[in-house]
């Protein structure tokens, strides 16, 4: 095979590989985001527990966060499973739903002291940022 012919084959192969990679990298990005969100939720949970243990928030205030943490974790689980089954509709739906639940969770901390809110806000914003990053190109 002449160098010119080799170049044609290599060029076609590179195009093929680039095409194959382009179709799969998006899913991996969402899967990694789902894992990152899960870690963020665990951080949120442990932060809330620590705030309660230190007396920064009451048991009632901690309890008020509980349904949102469960909803977010369930939605993230559905998101992670949807990635494996390549269910784009569920991925989009769960991301939108989680952003809504996150807003509700933030709203429950409105009555907290500014110092305490700042501590939980960090954990909440990590989850929100991960959702927003992954939503680019997914929810459109």
């Amino acid at each position, binding site marked *: 095979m002449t160098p*010119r012919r080799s170049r044609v084959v290599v060029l076609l192969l590179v195009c093929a590989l680039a095409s194959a990679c382009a179709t799969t990298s998006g899913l991996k990005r969402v899967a*990694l985001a789902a894992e990152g969100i899960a870690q963020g939720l665990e951080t949120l949970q442990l932060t809330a527990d620590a705030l309660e243990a230190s007396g920064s928030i009451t048991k009632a205030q901690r309890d008020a966060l509980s349904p949102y943490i469960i909803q977010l974790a369930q939605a993230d689980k559905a998101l992670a499973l949807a990635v494996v089954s390549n269910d784009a509709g569920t991925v989009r739906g769960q991301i939108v739903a989680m952003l809504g639940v996150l807003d509700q969770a933030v709203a429950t901390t409105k009555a907290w002291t500014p110092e305490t809110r700042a501590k939980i806000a960090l954990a909440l914003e990590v989850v929100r940022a991960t959702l927003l990053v992954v939503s680019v190109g997914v929810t459109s």
Partner: protein
Amino acid sequence: MTAAEIQIAVQAASYLFSLAAQHADAQTAAELREISARAVAITDRVIAREQARTKG
């Protein structure tokens, strides 16, 4: 380059594309399952802890 040679090159590239795509799909599917399993394990832990707290 003759038309026949181009045809052979295209067929070879097509075959290689198929192989590459199959390999990438298999590798990515395994990776996705692994990452997803890790995410699910964490979310299950979070939910279980939260439910235990509510019951307790």
